[in-house]
């Protein structure tokens, strides 16, 4: 029946997509935090 191959193909796709999405979300969160910290630092300097 080769069901193992069917399962493996779909598992590979979903694991790949999910790892990428979570990685991207983490990258985005870190960048947002860094940009916000920089903005606050610069605002303090401006005052």
């Amino acid at each position, binding site marked *: *029946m*080769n*069901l193992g*191959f*069917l399962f*493996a*193909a*779909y598992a*590979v*796709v979903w694991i*790949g*997509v999910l790892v*990428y*999405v979570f990685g*991207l*979300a983490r*990258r*985005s969160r870190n*960048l*947002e935090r*860094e*940009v*916000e910290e*920089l*903005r*606050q*630092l*610069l*605002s303090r*300097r*401006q005052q």
Partner: protein
Amino acid sequence: MSDPVLARHTESPSPDPADATQGNTAETVLGVTTGALVLAAMYAVFVYVPTDSFQGPVQRIFYIHMAMWLPTFSAFALVAIASLMYLWRRGPGWDRLGRSSAEIGLLFCTLGLATGSIWARPIWGTWWTWDPRLTLTLVLWMIYATYLLLRTLSATPEQGAVLSAILGLSGVIDLYLINRAVYWWRGIHPAVIANREGGSGLADPRMQVTLVICLVSFFLLFVWLLVLRMRTARLQDILEECREALARGPRAARV
């Protein structure tokens, strides 16, 4: 604040609705629609579509395998357009589009190669063969992996952007060759959508419907990922701009 870059990025700590660095309603709607369509695609693949009489259940890999290639080719076509525009206009937006598309295209290309290989093992009896289309697709993967690597290996971001834009533009030739490979050279890769005799390899209409749902849903997934990746790229650019502006400032050492 004398530096215009710093002034621009410190003006408003609260999110502007039009700010490309923030998520919005359209993005959420796109995400939800994509999720629903992907679920519908999985229902079609595992419940709706009939089992292929020749290959058996393993033929169902075909739907997700095919669905990986529309985003791959769209992404790399976008890289080529963005590369051309970047080389012509040198706008940072084009560079962001190019590197975002290349990254997502490489993801789908990797998954397309992997699913093809998993399908090939029970059907062809091998994980990999040097068929013209497969070989050209592997070359495509290498071109865009190099495209992304060039950015980290170049001396300056500008140099990396220019070199990778040249490479990204040349990748179009490989895209065209992949499309024509099954017609020009004798290989074992099947031409399913329009076979060599001019007909379709999908006899049952339910197979065609399932394929269309899969293609549309994964194309939407690509668009959604591209929107998210572009936002991240924009944030990266803002951060770089701020750091450079701070380095130019008198108190740069304190950052």
